């Protein structure tokens, strides 16, 4: 009999459910103490109201930040001697769970509001103009680290694939099941790059081999690693952390 149900077979669905539960309780769970402190007689159902208010304020903060965003304002750059060594590993899983990807067979899928959906190989991405930057990565947790990334300016890439740059979002899906999205203004910012290298070498696995989006005008979690697919869209794509309550825009 092969009637055994393996939990791992259902793990993507379980994770989705888990995330949804987490999201519902997440802002609310922390609200009960706030409720106790601030709203006399607050109970869990009042928590729902507070939860909705917090989500609404986060959407309002998205609007304020996109209005504050100056497409010509560059993130500060640093000298090679300022680079943080070792650069910290960071993900929603531990370092030994980093996906192993074969660069020879890897392809970047492109979809949505673009003219050319041909998948991209690593060598074709390397044939595009490359740029390098030494910038500060700021984590939502508060810590920061300075690193050097090189790769294709994202604006150049979007032009090559004939992206509709009047669309609102660019979304990313990653080999480690991470996903995220950014606004088009940030996608076109001169320092937003599809990074292929860290320092002088191709991105090591722990920093996002083979492809990472480097956005020095946003918090670290808006810099997806191990990118497998990207798409241009007008439908809000959300993100792994964003759907749980991290502010979506999270601009620096």
């Amino acid at each position: 009999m092969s009637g055994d149900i393996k939990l791992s077979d259902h793990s993507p669905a379980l994770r989705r459910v888990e995330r949804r539960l987490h999201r519902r309780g997440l802002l609310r769970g922390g609200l009960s103490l706030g409720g106790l402190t601030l709203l006399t007689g607050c109970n869990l159902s009042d928590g729902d109201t507070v939860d909705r208010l917090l989500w609404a304020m986060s959407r309002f903060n998205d609007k304020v930040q996109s209005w504050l965003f100056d497409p010509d304002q560059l993130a500060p750059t640093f000298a090679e001697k300022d680079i943080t060594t070792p650069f910290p590993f960071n993900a929603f899983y531990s370092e030994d769970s980093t996906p192993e990807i074969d660069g020879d067979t890897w392809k970047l899928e492109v979809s949505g509001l673009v003219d050319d959906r041909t998948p991209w190989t690593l060598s074709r991405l390397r044939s595009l103009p490359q740029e390098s930057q030494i910038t500060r990565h700021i984590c939502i947790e508060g810590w920061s680290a300075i690193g050097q990334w090189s790769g294709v300016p994202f604006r150049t890439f979007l032009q090559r694939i004939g992206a509709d740059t009047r669309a609102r979002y660019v979304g990313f899906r990653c080999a480690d099941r991470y996903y995220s999205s950014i606004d088009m203004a940030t996608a076109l910012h001169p320092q937003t790059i599809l990074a292929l290298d860290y320092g002088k070498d191709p991105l090591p696995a722990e920093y996002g081999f083979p492809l990472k989006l480097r956005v020095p005008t946003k918090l670290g979690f808006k810099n997806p690693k191990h990118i497998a697919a990207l798409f241009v869209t007008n439908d809000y794509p959300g993100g792994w952390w964003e759907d749980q309550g991290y502010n979506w825009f999270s601009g620096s």
Partner: protein
Amino acid sequence: MTHDPEPIRFVAVHPLVVRITHWLNAIAMVCMIMSGWQIYNASPLFPFTFPRWATLGGWLGGAIAWHLAAMWLLVANALVYFAYGLAGRHFLRAFLPLTPRLVWRDLLDALTFRLKHTVGAYNAVQRLAYVVVLLLGLLAVASGLSLWKPVQLHGLAALLGGYEVARRIHFLAMAGIVAFIVLHLTLVALVPRTLVSMITGRARIPASHAEVEP
């Protein structure tokens, strides 16, 4: 001059604008400090963390949602308060004169239990404490803005020594504000009628003290 026949009378001590902004600020400050402690715990600057019961938000995402929502209340309320204080001469009346000599004199008097309490006026030590906490509030907002927008407001962040220095300044400003709150609440506990007058705006003066010198 005829004397008031009543044994007690009331004087206005806190204008309505001051009372409203005081209580809104109290709400905003509690939210900012407790959610800030939860954010701090995600990546502690120093070898300690804040106990869970003292934090707000439940987890980092919830705490940041609180922090970046309550900041609007804090700043909007502060703008009303500062506009009123500067335009309406409230600051001049409440916080001046303020000289080191006056502070020293009132501090010595207080420590030797000789300080006279004048209803409706602050002594020099109180004036100094209020001015310092207002400056700490400005520093907390300036450093907070440069942590929220280190690229868009990179001039402000650079003025404060860059992102990592701004983080520490933000923490120290919080610590100073919390120290003020502890002192403030202690004094309110010792003289509870000051709590009543921050609600009603009035303070009771016994007739015998009505002509107390300023």
